[in-house]
């Protein structure tokens, strides 16, 4: 096996372009599980752990190499809440948001926040330069994304006006070290528009637009409207039954979780 240690994004992209089959390694918390269980046997690995320019955090541009440990302290409230629920201290010290985006698991806990914030994923190649792909174009299926063979994920780029009223929570079987059964992020902007994104209930993170429309602009929704909101969320998600949960439970939990987060946003 060959191991490359680029010093910059530019260098990493050049190595990837020269060998499009090479595997990118960031924190390794997804990739090494695959390696240890024999599901991946890379013959060329490009290590990004020490590419400093990827680890740069700004409120409107979060470098792919920023760890969950760093995001726990960030100013985006719901992203920090999501970061605190990822794995364990060990996983958060190594795992990065770029790795979460790269894996594109339906249960990736960073993804509902990116969907609610309407983030663009910034990718870079030596031939085409920088490309910005909106979150809903980037995540294309279960563990599938729009990254080309010669590209490196460089950042999540946020619009200037990400609503500051935002809440994230997830449901799982225990409170530490658990993959989401359902995760959700709700945001409320200054005009009262509501955004609701969910994870682990569809092949990709999704927005539930009908439910959003139902409660947008409502600063004091009635109990009946909140119930209708929860029912609409449950109807709009597209969950499956797997070893972690059933479709029916995920539908129910989606509505309950989204309503709870909506009420928290309205109380702020």
């Amino acid at each position, binding site marked *: *096996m060959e191991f490359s240690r680029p010093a910059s994004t530019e260098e990493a992209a050049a190595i990837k372009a020269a060998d499009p089959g090479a595997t990118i390694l960031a924190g390794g918390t997804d990739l090494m599980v695959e390696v240890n269980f024999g599901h991946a046997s890379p013959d060329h690995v490009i290590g990004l752990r020490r590419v400093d320019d990827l680890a740069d955090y700004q409120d409107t541009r979060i470098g792919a190499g920023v760890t969950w440990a760093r995001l726990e302290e960030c100013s985006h409230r719901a992203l920090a809440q999501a970061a605190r629920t990822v794995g364990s201290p*060990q996983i958060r*010290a190594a795992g990065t948001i770029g790795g979460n985006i790269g894996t594109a698991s339906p249960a990736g806990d960073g993804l509902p926040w990116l969907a609610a914030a309407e983030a663009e994923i910034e990718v870079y190649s030596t031939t085409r330069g920088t490309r910005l792909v909106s979150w809903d174009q980037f995540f294309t299926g279960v563990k599938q994304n729009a990254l080309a063979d010669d590209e490196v994920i460089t950042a999540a780029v946020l619009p200037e006006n990400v609503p500051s009223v935002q809440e994230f929570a997830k449901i799982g079987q225990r409170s530490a070290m658990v993959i989401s059964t359902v995760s959700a992020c709700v945001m409320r902007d200054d005009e009262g528009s509501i955004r609701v994104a969910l994870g682990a209930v569809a092949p990709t993170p999704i927005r539930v637009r009908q439910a959003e429309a139902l409660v947008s602009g409502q600063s004091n929704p009635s109990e009946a409207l909140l119930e209708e909101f929860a029912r609409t969320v449950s109807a709009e998600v597209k969950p499956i039954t797997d070893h972690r949960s059933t479709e029916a439970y995920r539908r129910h939990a989606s509505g309950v979780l989204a309503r709870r987060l909506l009420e928290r946003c309205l109380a702020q």
Partner: protein
Amino acid sequence: MIINMTVNGEARNAVVAGSESLLTTLREELGLPGSKNACEQGECGSCTVILDGALVTSCLVMSADCEDSEITTVEGLSTDRELHAVQRALLDAGAVQCGFCTPGFVVAAAHLFEENRHPSSETIREALSGNICRCTGYGAILRGLEALAQEPS
């Protein structure tokens, strides 16, 4: 390939096969079997080490990515004469049953006490949330570390 790393303060040249994990290299190549292999998927924390200042599970670190890295394993925390304060605290509390999880807990707790000499019970629990004890000896582990947190610095 040969990877140069500093392990427990000593420069080491490790012969690393392919994509093997740091855990494998430590145990099988560098003669440091203190870090334990129980899950190889980051879930149990028994392989916990400190890598360039960060607390990580060594089963999820690729050894090839450790060129010029500094690693502290459980073996590096004590000397022949003196246990680390965390080890003494766990011993005093009778916090070891089969002992398989103990090195991971010791490294995680040592990393915590390095940053915060008087952590709250809440902080201790949070810091150890990536470590699992199949003997479920959590009560004694927490009591031992809570007692250490009360000791004057």
